[in-house]
């Protein structure tokens, strides 16, 4: 947790990996501007693991795009401790490069010297337990392996904040379960802050220290839960199931509201 103090900017930003202060975002629609995110205030502390939970239309992806710096908020202010790394539902690995070279490209764009890149890439592959995958092409890897390489590539950016946009949604249950364990381990090892978007309540509870529920159309912060179940957790653990049940109830209530008008 103390790792991020060294590179933080001079102002008060030391205390957070990302700070959203009354952030709103609207897009031009057929009948005037369409409000997608409404007055979102959210802090992610250094080393914290936060999941953003919400049904369709809650603007999760819009929010991640804003934090990633791919888009600008319409109102409010948003600061991050350096440029965050972003991981997608699809692996987004470049198919013209091998697994190792994908990671090396991230290192190169960060300005790592050429001689250091292969060694660093192999270290990162080892971190995600894919030592042998350095020379493999993307299409030769399974879905779970691709997401692990994508995770290694995101970690190669050495960002303080890792944004994850439903990264395990397309995987089968067994693989997803294993990757939850991996992500928890790597998060603990690297001390990176994680902002993880999902619509899977149990996944949110399995992984996070804090679960933030967004309401839909427009996206607003509906409620927050602190998850103090000790890690390592399993998705089947009784406390995880119990909290998930409670959150699901609130989520359903949120969704039900939309059917009433």
């Amino acid at each position: 947790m103390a790792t991020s103090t060294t590179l933080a900017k001079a102002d008060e930003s030391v205390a957070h990996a990302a700070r959203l202060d009354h952030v709103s975002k609207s897009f031009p629609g057929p009948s005037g501007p369409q409000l997608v995110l409404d007055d979102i205030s959210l802090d992610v502390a250094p080393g914290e693991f936060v999941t953003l939970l919400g049904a369709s239309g809650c603007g999760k992806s819009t929010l991640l795009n804003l934090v990633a710096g791919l888009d600008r908020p319409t109102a409010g202010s948003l600061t991050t401790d350096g440029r965050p790394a972003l991981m997608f539902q699809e692996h987004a690995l470049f198919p013209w490069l091998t697994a190792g070279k994908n990671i090396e490209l991230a290192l190169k764009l960060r300005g790592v010297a050429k001689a250091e890149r292969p060694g660093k890439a192999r270290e990162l592959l080892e971190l995600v337990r894919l030592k042998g995958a350095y020379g493999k092409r993307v299409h030769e890897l399974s879905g779970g392996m691709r997401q692990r390489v994508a995770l290694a590539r995101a970690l190669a950016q050495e960002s303080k904040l890792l944004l994850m946009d439903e990264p395990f949604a397309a995987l089968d249950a067994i693989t997803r379960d294993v990757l939850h364990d991996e992500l928890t381990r790597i998060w603990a090892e690297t001390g990176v802050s994680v902002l993880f978007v999902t619509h899977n309540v149990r996944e949110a509870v399995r992984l996070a220290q804090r679960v933030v529920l967004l309401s839909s159309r427009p996206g607003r912060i509906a409620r927050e839960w602190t998850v103090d179940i000790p890690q390592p957790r399993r998705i089947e653990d009784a406390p995880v199931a119990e909290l998930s049940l409670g959150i699901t109830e609130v989520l359903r209530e949120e969704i039900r509201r939309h059917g009433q008008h």
Partner: protein
Amino acid sequence: MASTETKTTERTGLAGIEAGLDALESTAARRTPWRQTFTEKILPPVIAVAVVLVVWQALISLKIVDDPTKLPSPGAVGDQFAESWRKGELLGYIWTSVSRGLLGFAFALLIGTPLGLLVARVKFVRAAIGPILSGLQSLPSVAWVPPAVIWLGLNNSMMYAVILLGAVPSIANGLVSGVDQVPPLFLRAGRTMGATGLKGVRHVLLPAALPGYVAGMKQGWAFSWRSLMAAEIIASFPDLGVGLGQLLENGRNALDMAMVFEAILLILFVGIAIDLLIFSPLERWVLRSRGLLVKS
């Protein structure tokens, strides 16, 4: 707590589960055995050529066509090849045309690539010349020969001009469609990694567009070669050296059908050979390295 213990053992076993999953879900690449390549890839075209030769010889032998100024026998065409070879002219014909074609194609690449990038990435340029560029592809390049002769005269520059006008639109269009097909996800991923501006073009956009670009190059070569042959046939002039197009025209003037056949076959072979030796392997390599070429 008892449950913590089971958790610990499960955690140490995680690497094992992962290795198992990885092994289960990866498939090993298989090399096609040589015998199979032979029977599936090499044998069929050889048989096709043999059938054509047999039919051709039958037309002569059965006297269905017995005017050698209309249809020479395969043997006569063979003798024509042998004679050109003996006189040491055969390679000269080929080289004259191939060197023109490849040099012209190289110029076309130098012009078509930046042009394609501009059309693909700059909205105004696309709106302005995009439709013209794709329209130009359907204009037979022979149409450029008369104006090129008038503008540049009967010389090599005119040949290159015709090649360029034939190949540049194909190359540029190939690159444009390659860029259009780049998944936006790659560009987003690149941007979050810091690949913006020219870095983004070099590290993400161009490599991602490579399959379309190579397809455009392949078509561009076919168009270069056709344009060049048209130019050589129409604008044959002794001082230009004898390329394959001139050989064809000379054969026609001399009413020497064997020579005409020799020229046609050479034009065909060279076109196929360049494609087989350069463009097809390049295309296959690009597609295979991305897992886009699935062995049937």
